[in-house]
């Protein structure tokens, strides 16, 4: 036995020589804006989760899992993160080295990894994790699996940790509030074959390449797994990111990139954990869920009454109640189950607290009701306030009688006026909602970036920041009383983009019942839609199953029709972004070109789709009369003339534009139908359409049915004029 051990030792020696300490990359930036407005003032990783900053959970886990060297990548609020770490216990631990890497211009995880690659600090397999992950899993087995696979196959570059968690059948969200995830995994090798997290809800089917089955006799499709965002990576991962400079997002680009174009043959594997805990705080919903998991001790030993580094002692009492040693609690106050009260907090008479986390040094008055809420440090809640499923940041003052409806977020130092009712799902901050200006970023990640961009502190104006954000701190006396009640301080952010409709999905508050039924109704409708679609799609069904070839053609047609609808939508979205964010035309062209490639469209399709978007923009500009509409059209076309023109290489595309315009007039934008001839004239004047194209279109329509010739007739005069003009030229 001893002998054998010795002999294997020798063979491993070569490996031993290059052995490097087990490393980890911790991204202390989520490159997302889901925790706004809180993250405008403090980085997400420093936000308290059950009274301990999130990053401490991650670091504590890394340390316990045997990681020896951690590189903390800081981007947004990097100074705060670095300061925090320097003053923490983490820097003084033996066998655990924490190094920070600072960057100011990384806008994505991809950028971060590219930067780390350039530093040449990673020498072996490493754990890639974000600073908002809570876990108690043991890495040994996953690491071993990863290493064994690597020995057999050098292309196995990544092992990703997954956990069972079935999304809600109604909202299609996991309990962490993330979108449902579809994965295909080889049940034997555990290789990941398919990954779709931003599920396209419009598509009722999942398309797997048939070739997958040629290699694997069986595949498991999963909708019941959750991605823990803990990845064990080989050093190649960094170089893959460097080679593919367009990879930004770890999942959307990297994973999908490796899975879809397997040119390089890299493989990703999964490791499923069963009894251990691992979850990432992605949004407010997961903040709520994970907090509860911690209080209910699923994350043991990372629980409030165990002193892992950085937290202070609390005592576990019956019913899952944790109380710090030094609190002042009135006898008549009722503290319900699954709550935690921080050090130095005072609670007044007849106050009821349940399922909530109260931070340190808070003052809570009498007759307050707190349910399912997260109160951070130094918060003052005066008498008679009611809080339900809210997050209240440091130094907030709630004047007596104020009410927080479910889902409210109060950012730092906000003051809520007396008796004021903050409506559900509102986000209140001292900072005004940033309005994006002159974003010269050509990538969509620009938005992700701007959210967590350095905003050093609330007192400094943010004008330095490339003009990406404009936030100013107004004079205190300028606070309007209307916004958060008399004596209140703060702005209620208007809900943008996702819209109010979707706000409940990611909120701390549980999903309201009426939403559930609403969504359920919607899914039922969806279901009918998709199944109708699939009836046509599947090579059988109502179609005459006589000739197989016919059916497959139909299948294709349906498919391409689908695709062209999506394509049009995407082009429109791109164009609108260009309009609203002042994106340069060249960039729009680039984006449209890439869309064209990915949807396999012709340039005529691009021209049609772009023209459609432009006209739609003109239509949406408010106007009172036809002449005003015409003016709008003229101005919009002048503005985007160059863009459209760049897709009109030949007559075919121009004709496509005319046909598209006709179609619009008939279907989606009947407002234009009266102005057809005039707009045609504008298009001609602006050089978008050549006379040849118009004449050809007219002559093509010659033989068409009467109904099809309405617009030709309308523009008869113009065409005649063109005809004469060309004759004159001759």
């Amino acid at each position: 036995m001893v002998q054998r051990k010795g002999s294997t030792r020798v063979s491993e020696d070569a490996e031993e020589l290059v052995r490097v300490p087990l490393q980890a990359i911790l991204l202390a930036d989520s490159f997302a804006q889901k925790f706004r407005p809180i993250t405008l003032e403090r980085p997400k990783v420093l936000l308290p989760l059950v009274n301990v900053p999130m990053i401490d959970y991650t670091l504590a886990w890394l340390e316990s899992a045997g990681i020896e060297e951690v590189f903390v990548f800081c981007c947004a609020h990097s100074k705060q993160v670095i300061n925090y770490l320097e003053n923490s216990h983490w820097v003084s631990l033996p066998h655990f080295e924490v190094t920070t890497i600072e960057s100011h211009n990384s806008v994505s995880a991809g950028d971060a990894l590219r930067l780390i690659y350039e530093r040449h600090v990673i020498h072996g397999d490493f754990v890639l994790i974000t600073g908002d992950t809570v876990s108690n899993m043991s890495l040994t087995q996953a690491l071993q699996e990863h290493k064994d696979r690597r020995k057999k196959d050098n292309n196995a570059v990544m092992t990703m940790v997954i956990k069972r968690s079935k999304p809600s059948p109604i909202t299609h969200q996991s309990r962490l509030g993330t979108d449902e995830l579809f994965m295909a995994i080889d049940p034997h090798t555990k290789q990941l074959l398919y990954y779709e997290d931003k599920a396209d809800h419009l598509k009722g089917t999942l398309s797997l390449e048939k070739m997958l089955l040629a290699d694997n006799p069986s595949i498991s499709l999963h909708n019941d797994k959750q991605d823990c965002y803990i990845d064990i990576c080989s050093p190649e991962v960094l170089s893959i990111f460097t080679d593919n400079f367009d990879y930004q997002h770890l999942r959307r680009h990297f994973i999908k990139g490796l899975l879809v174009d397997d040119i390089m043959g890299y493989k990703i594997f999964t490791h499923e954990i069963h009894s251990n805990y691992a979850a990432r705080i992605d949004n407010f919903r997961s903040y709520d869920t994970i907090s509860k998991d911690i209080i209910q001790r699923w994350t043991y030993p990372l629980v409030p009454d165990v002193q892992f580094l950085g937290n202070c002692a609390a005592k576990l009492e019956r019913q899952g109640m944790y109380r710090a040693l030094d609190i002042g609690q009135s006898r008549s106050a009722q503290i319900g189950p699954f709550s935690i009260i921080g050090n130095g907090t005072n609670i007044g008479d007849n106050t009821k607290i349940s399922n909530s986390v109260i931070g340190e040094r808070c003052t809570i008055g009498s007759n307050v009701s707190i349910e399912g809420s997260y109160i951070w440090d130094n918060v003052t809640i005066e008498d008679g306030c009611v809080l339900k499923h809210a997050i209240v940041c440091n130094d907030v003052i709630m004047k007596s009688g104020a009410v927080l409806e479910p889902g409210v977020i109060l950012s730092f130092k906000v003051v809520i006026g007396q008796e004021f009712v903050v409506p559900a799902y509102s986000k209140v901050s001292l900072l005004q909602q940033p309005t994006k200006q002159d974003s010269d970023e050509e990538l969509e990640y620009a938005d992700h970036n701007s959210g967590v961009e350095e905003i050093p502190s609330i007192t400094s104006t943010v004008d330095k920041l490339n003009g990406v954000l404009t936030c100013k701190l107004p004079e205190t006396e300028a606070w309007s009383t209307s916004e958060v009640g008399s004596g209140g301080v703060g702005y209620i952010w208007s809900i943008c983009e996702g819209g109010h409709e979707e706000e409940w999905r990611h909120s701390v508050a549980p999903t309201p019942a009426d939403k559930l039924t609403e969504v359920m109704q919607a899914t039922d409708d969806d279901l009918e839609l998709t199944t109708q679609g699939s009836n046509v799609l599947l090579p059988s069904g109502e179609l005459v199953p006589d000739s197989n070839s016919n059916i497959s053609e139909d299948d294709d047609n349906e498919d391409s029709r689908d695709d062209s609808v999506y394509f049009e939508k995407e082009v429109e979205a791109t164009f609108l972004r260009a309009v609203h964010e002042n994106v340069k035309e060249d960039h729009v062209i680039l984006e449209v070109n890439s869309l064209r490639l990915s949807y396999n469209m012709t340039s005529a399709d691009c021209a049609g789709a772009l023209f459609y978007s432009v006209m739609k923009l003109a239509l949406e500009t408010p106007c009172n009369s036809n002449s005003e509409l015409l003016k709008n059209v003229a101005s919009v076309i002048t503005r985007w003339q160059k863009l459209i023109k760049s897709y009109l290489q030949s007559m075919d595309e121009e004709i496509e534009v005319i046909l598209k315009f006709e179609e619009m007039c008939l279907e989606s934008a009947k407002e234009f139908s009266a102005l057809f001839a005039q707009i045609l004239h504008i298009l001609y004047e602006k050089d978008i359409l050549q006379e040849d194209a118009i004449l050809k279109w007219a002559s093509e329509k010659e033989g068409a049915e009467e109904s099809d010739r309405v617009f030709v007739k309308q523009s008869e005069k113009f065409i005649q004029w063109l005809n004469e003009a060309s004759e004159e030229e001759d």
Partner: protein
Amino acid sequence: MDFQVVVLAGGTSKKLVPLVSKEVPKALLPVANRPVLSYVLELLEHSNLKDLIVVVEGQDAALRVGGWISGAYVDRLHVEVAAVPEDVGTAGALRAIAHHLTANDILVVSGDLVCDVSPGAVAAAHRRHGAAVTAMLCSVPVSGPLESGSSSGKDKTKKPGCCNIIGLDPTKQFLLYIATGPEIERDIRVQKSILRAVGQMEIRADLMDAHLYAFKRAVLQEVLDQKDAFQSLQQDVLPYLVRSQLRSELSLNGAPHTEENGHDKVVPGINQVMLSQLLAKTSTPSFHELYAMGPNGSAPVRRTHKCCVYIASQDKYCARLNSIQAFSDINRDVIGEASHLSGYSFSAQNNIIHPSAELGSKTTVGQNCMLGEGSQLGDKCSVKRSVIGRHCRIGSNVKVVNSVVMNHVTISDGCSIQGSVICSNAQLQERVVLKDCQVGAGFVVTSGSEYKGEFLAKKER
């Protein structure tokens, strides 16, 4: 009457020309000197399913099949033979005989199935789940230690993607997706709604639809009535039922319930059974029931039906005689590895030689061979892994390897036959060499000719 069995015996399949003819419809093709249909009939008889409707395409074929059945099974089975027009498809055939169907559940079996999986087990699985349809799946035969003779075409058929692509739930009881491999262009499209409801789906390419289904009669009739374009059970009806299982368009869900409820009131005994069934169900509700439930676990708001599978275990034999290749394979298997199916008892040499067969001197008949009644072999012949039918006359110095020789075939001296099928009444003159050929009924191969991989049949066809 519990289960009614429909055997779809087909007609004269074009795929099997020149083996089939007007005289020999597909159902009567010999497998180890017995019509292939007899395997299904005996299988059913074993499961005590004796009430059968045999559906044959074409009047002539029906007459022949009927004649044979009445001769062979006169006092063992209660068989009705129904003729349907040719090319109506399997669904069309069922539609044509729908008025004969009266039992609650219908077992539909393809007449070309040669297997030893008990249909009773399929029926039981069907009943247990109260499924709308239950399909039997068997594993695709892995190319085992096949001996030399297997032709090159063999490997092709075994490639994945050529058989079915099947999606199963983790318990392997429910059918969630089914498609025929070659029909899929590029992508396998899986409905998300089903995947959501189940959570996990296993997609397999190593299973084959054995064409043995149990249907609820009401479901079958409703689908056949409503979707008159459906022609094939396997390609239209089953996929339709599978993909609509979570938003059932069938009215049956209401109907049988009330039916059963009616039963309950009449017979209190059954009530007990129903209750226990219900209890059993509530303990582990299937995803169908969970899905059907309202948001608060209230009464079902969605209509669903279940599509179940019965997966035959690996060691069972299961094959369908649907190609010439399959014909040769099955013949070889039935006297070889799956010899228990043949129903004969093998000799010590592991072959079957009918007592009335005559063998010349120095003639050897190897393992896994069969020699039919009254056949004669000349001197110095060698027969290996082959089936020789009744009343064949085989000259001297003839080699027959890996082949099937049907009845009344004359093979003259010095012929060599490898991997071929010789149909009844064919004649091979002297020194014919055949490799991987099919010789049609009554065809005469002139002396000295050599063929490789060809169909030899009378021109008129």
